[in-house]
């Protein structure tokens, strides 16, 4: 499923966050978005999923078109868009009152109206995929950060999305736990999932990204294959940014 964002603008109050951002993602690609804080990376992902409205520009996701809606938080088209896109958050946002399996089966059971047995089988299968089938009856508070994020991935996958939007999904994890999440994402990439990731994991970008996009002040500064952007960028800002990340 291709994604086309064209000339997207978004301001919070008077502060422009997205300032004519244009980006294209081809189905099956893994795109890593990097950039300094406040450059609009997270806002862009949230706009793609309709969690934030856009002031101007257009977003096309497969056949679905998202247009500027005046200040409405949840766009009326969002529900269709959300069915083809899953989103994973920095803070996991698991449902604390539900078991791990409950978290995963909630949406398929209630939104897709799967029957209980189907939803359960799907849930267990997905938990197995992220290596947590033995934790199905645990509650989120009993899990480590890495485990929580893997549950969040399984929960998103339960809706059979074509695209996964990953918003700094390893930023609140201890270094030794990051790889268990990144391994899962890499596996998904190998299965053909389109991944759009905001991250600071340069190593992962080098290894797995098809395209790296450098964002600053709400615009795409430079985009290209990881070797080009990460090792040999045209823009000196990128070099400074990356050297700071590596240090």
């Amino acid at each position, binding site marked *: 499923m291709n994604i086309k964002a064209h000339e997207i603008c978004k301001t919070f109050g008077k502060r422009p966050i997205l300032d004519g951002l244009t980006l294209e993602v081809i189905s099956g690609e893994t795109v890593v978005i990097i950039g300094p804080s406040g450059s609009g990376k997270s806002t862009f992902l949230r706009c793609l999923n309709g969690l934030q409205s856009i002031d101007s520009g257009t977003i096309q996701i497969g056949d679905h078109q998202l247009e500027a809606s005046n200040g409405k938080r949840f766009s009326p088209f969002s*529900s269709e868009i959300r069915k083809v896109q899953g989103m994973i958050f920095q803070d996991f*946002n*698991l*449902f604390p*009152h539900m078991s791990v399996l409950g978290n995963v089966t909630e949406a398929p059971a*209630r939104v897709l109206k799967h029957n209980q047995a189907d939803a359960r089988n799907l849930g267990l299968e997905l938990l197995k995929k992220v290596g947590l089938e033995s934790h199905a009856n645990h509650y989120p508070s009993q899990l480590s950060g890495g485990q929580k994020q893997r549950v969040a991935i399984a929960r998103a996958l339960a*809706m059979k999305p074509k695209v996964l939007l990953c918003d700094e999904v390893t930023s609140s994890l201890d270094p030794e736990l990051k790889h268990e999440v990144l391994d899962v994402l890499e596996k998904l990439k190998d299965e053909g999932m389109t991944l759009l990731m905001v991250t600071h994991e340069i190593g992962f970008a080098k290894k797995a990204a098809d395209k790296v996009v450098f964002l600053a002040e709400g615009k795409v500064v430079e985009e290209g294959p990881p070797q080009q952007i990460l090792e040999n960028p045209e823009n000196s800002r990128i070099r400074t940014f990356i050297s700071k990340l590596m240090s």
Partner: protein
Amino acid sequence: MLLQIPLMLLLALAQPPTPLIWAADEEGGAPYVYRDNKLGRVGFELDIINALAEELKRPIEFKQYAFDSLIPGLLKGDFDFAMNGLEINEERQEKIRFSKPYYIYRQQLVTRADEKRFNTLLGCKNTLGAIVGTMDGTQAERLLNQAKIPIRTYSSSTEAYADLVSAGRIDAVFLDLPMAISYALPNKRLQFAGKPTARGFYAIGFHPKSETLAKEVDAAIDALKANGKLRSILVKWNLWDECQEELSAGFLFEEEGRPDAITHSILEDNQAWTIDRYLPLLLEGTWVTIQLTLCSFTLALVLGLPLSLARLYGTPWLKSLALLYVEFFRGIPVLLLLFFLYFGLPAIAESSGLNISLALSPFIAATLGLGLNYAAYEAETFRAAIQSVPQGQWEAAASLGMGKTLTFRRIILPQAMRIALPTTTNDLVALFKDTSIASVVALVELNKQYQILAKSSLKFVELGLITALLYLALSVPLGRLARALEKKLAPERR
């Protein structure tokens, strides 16, 4: 310096004698001592007091005191004596010293003028569903209880007669003749049913240690009887009747010593106040308290949730309406609300010529009053709880394609309920204790039952401890139940 001492002595001698403090309840109603719109404080007892003051050559000051508390207040030494239609009876005589009587009272049954079903207490007892109104802690109440006639008690005669006339929640009022003369005689919609019965004495109550003062007052009362002043006061208040002749004769009491030797009740109460007698009554009151708590709290929850939703997600119009509700019901005393619902509504229905009766039963009025009041608190508790569920929960659910309603029901509400639970439990315990307010609308719950029993038996301490234990026996497990529920609702914390 030297000059000052004789000066002070002189001043002390010149000062008038210290006034005696007389306690009574002017809210009890006419004609004892009460507030008249034009004349201020009036009453036949006030007239007697003034005559006594003249006789004793000492000023007497009035002190407002709740009728129920006159005897405990007297024993505590809050005032010199109590005079407020105090009937002489055995329990009281064990605790306080009574003066010679100043009035011989009888009880008068009053019904609505169109009452066809009965015109005696016996007839009333045999009329199914008939309820007789009376006042707390009076001889009339004891007589009715002994006769096992269903009663409803009020803290003033005005309320009792008003309930009989306009609301029709009771079928008769049985009270002392003076009250009947003041209220029922001038009212065309009421009638005296049968002759007055059950004679007894009104006398002034003293602390047992105030024997000297009591003797002085006894002498003064004798003097008022002898010089005809007492008679003229009673005549002025339309209270003089053939009974009172005995009073002036005087010899009747002297023969047998103190007036307490004479008992004039038609149904003498010789039963001792033992635990097997009052415990069932207290348990009955407890059951009413439990029912009232459950019903009014259910109402509070059922109203509170939609109110909180209106406050959070309603249209601007709905939002301000819900806010208005919360501010109004949180801002007025629940006591005022109960009074309005019980006494105000029937009056409104009557004055506006509505055909429907708005006379709520005591239980319904209390449930409504407490429920409406607590709904305001619950609405705010729920609102705060719903708001404290992190925004990320909404977003996570939205990103899964869940709609607003589904998200609220499945994701937000369960978490909000868990957050609200400790506060809600607190409110439940508070409401449980607030049910005692319901006694103002003549509902006999646990606290009221305690007051009634304590007043008739004068066992304030023993009964108080038992009542407190009954309250604790319910509120403590309530707290435990809530903690268990909290655990159950938070399975991940197990």
